[in-house]
């Protein structure tokens, strides 16, 4: 009956969707996408703030450590960026929080941090990512973060603490200076709690393997979750590798580091528009430079907004360096570079 009614409504509103009429009255409504109201923007440090988001009924919740793609409109243009959810593991109802650092000169993050979006509606993806805790916690856990990389680990810490599973957990955070410590008060509350199987340490300055080894001498005996800027991740993984424990580290990156072997200049054919171009970077950048405007989002290979059909040719994954020579497959333009004979359905 309901199925029949919704088919009838769809036929009556064709070629629009029923949503297109409902959202005139309620902009938060959507039967497909997650939309959220920005309930509050809370400053954290001089360049970071926490956005409290109240999602609509499409939100399916998140696991601690996962991220969402957030879409906002900046000067009339929709832009998508990925952020780890910082609040503790959520079900489908209730607000979630993301904590954002304003990147100087960035198009999106300064706007988010400024608080100007309070009360507006933004679009979210469902939570995604496999940087999560296992069902059964390891014997010893190390949560290690640098700078704004603290957010997914904060979600883990908050989740574990709320569930009382915070035994044998060491949380170490590195910040540039004490003014840059996000969640400083909350972290010191954790650190100073009376019953303290949980250990929370905050350090300023770069991660240095030697001093870290003084702090956690047996770190190689921990299962580690690590998030931070690329040099931080590189230093931590090197420290674990030096003790033959590389496999115990799981990392979450929030910026794109091209794989070492940067692809050479190659020709690309955009089949639908009939354009040809040459370039070395991502197919997204090449397409944009040749005047095309494909939908795009995070530009990090996460949100999949720029997914597009590759008709033929070989592309290289900018993150891993892996080659793909399959024809007629969907690829992410932002993390694929042309190698040879590439034709894209664009």
């Amino acid at each position, binding site marked *: 009956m309901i199925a029949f009614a919704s088919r009838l409504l769809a*036929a*009556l509103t064709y070629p*629009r969707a029923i949503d297109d009429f409902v959202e005139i009255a309620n902009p938060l409504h959507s039967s497909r996408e997650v939309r959220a109201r920005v309930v509050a923007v809370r400053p954290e440090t001089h360049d970071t703030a926490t956005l409290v988001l109240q999602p609509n009924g499409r939100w399916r919740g998140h696991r601690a450590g996962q991220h969402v793609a957030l879409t906002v*409109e900046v000067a*009339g243009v*929709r832009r998508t960026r990925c952020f780890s959810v910082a609040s503790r593991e959520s079900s489908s109802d209730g607000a979630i929080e993301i904590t954002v650092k304003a990147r100087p000169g960035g198009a999106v993050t300064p706007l988010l941090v400024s608080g100007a979006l309070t009360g507006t509606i933004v679009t979210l993806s469902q939570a995604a990512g496999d940087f999560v805790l296992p069902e059964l916690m390891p014997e010893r856990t190390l949560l290690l973060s640098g700078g704004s990389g603290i957010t997914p680990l904060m979600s883990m810490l908050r989740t574990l603490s709320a569930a009382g599973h915070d035994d044998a957990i060491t949380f170490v955070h590195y910040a540039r200076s004490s003014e840059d410590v996000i969640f400083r008060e909350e972290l010191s509350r954790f650190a100073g709690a009376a019953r303290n199987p949980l250990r929370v340490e905050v350090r300023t300055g770069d991660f240095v393997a030697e001093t870290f080894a003084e702090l956690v001498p047996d770190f190689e005996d921990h299962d580690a979750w690590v998030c931070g800027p690329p040099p931080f991740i590189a230093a931590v993984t090197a420290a674990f590798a030096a003790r033959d424990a590389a496999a115990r580290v799981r990392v979450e990156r929030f910026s794109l580091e091209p794989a070492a072997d940067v692809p050479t200049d190659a020709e690309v054919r955009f089949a639908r528009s009939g354009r040809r171009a040459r370039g070395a970077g991502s197919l997204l950048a090449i397409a944009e430079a040749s005047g095309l*405007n494909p*939908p795009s989002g995070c530009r990090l290979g996460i949100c999949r907004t720029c997914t597009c059909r590759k008709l033929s040719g070989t592309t290289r994954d900018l993150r891993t360096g892996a080659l793909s020579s399959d024809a007629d497959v969907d690829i992410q333009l932002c993390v694929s570079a042309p190698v040879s004979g590439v034709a894209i359905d664009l």
Partner: protein
Amino acid sequence: MNTARRLSAADLEAFGAELDALLHRTRTDLGERDVRYIRTAIRRQRSLELAGRALLFASFFPPAWVLGTAALAASKIIENMEVGHNVLHGQYDFANDPKLSSTTYEWDSVCPADQWRHSHNYLHHTFTNVRGVDADLGYRLLRVEDAQPWTRWTFFQPLYAVALAVLFQWGVAAHDVDLRRYIAQPRERTDEDREKIGGVVRKASRQLLKDYVLFPLLAGPFALHVLAGNLVANLVRNVWAFAVIFCGHFPDGTETFEPQVLDGETRGAFYQRQLAGSANFEGGRLLHFMSGHLSHQIEHHLFPDVPAHRYPEMGREVRAICEKYGVAYNTGSLGGQLWSVAKKIARLALPPLTGRSSTPAST
């Protein structure tokens, strides 16, 4: 034939550069204002559509029928012209919003949007008024210039024009496939033709189902009232769209071109051809809005993917540039332009006078 002053190659280049500069200035200024504009238009259109459909359900009360039909007609006109036509041109693609994207938008017309984007955006806008290439030139049905051959069937073309006006959306739907060839030469049919016809049939069935079956049935005892209201609304939209579009390319003073002009055509020459092949009509903001700003057909043909609500302000600059270079800028009142189109269709229905230059029938 060519009444425009011949520009020197250097002038033509400078003329093109000035229009390019205007395009660039406008494009870098696109943003929130444009997105807000089109979303407001969409909101108004949907509210009118809801109001129109609701009023038609109360159409046992005659004024409700009239108002409902008027609201639905207005909503269909706005959806087709200010929203559909302009969104499908990619005017709002810069916003990166899937709901305003030329690749995903589908409009309230029997013509599938993807076929329209080929026949209109590509063929008509690139080859505007070029004989044998631009199928909008007389819609393969009318003789709209002396150079076209006259046959005895041409004599009845005022009737064809009326029929095309009444059935305009079907004319548009039959456009991407050359329906005349499809029917007359069954052996020439390609898979692509068949695919396109299939697309039109699927799209048209859903449109007909909505307006002529489902909404009337829902109205129960007033089914016929609703059916009549929907029919009249579609008809009004058809006639209005026909009028606006015919005022865009066929009033006196608009020129047609031989395919040779396309060889090595420079940017400046392209602009000059678009200017010579298009005509504006003047009016207030409401008239511009209800014509999807195709009242600014000239600016639309110069800058087809710039948000159309920008055309009035761009038009002032275009006119100044045209005056500077002595390029004709064809504009007039809506009534005047329509009258001139009607006269042309009537005059060309008659056989060419002997001695007058005309190309003999080549078929």
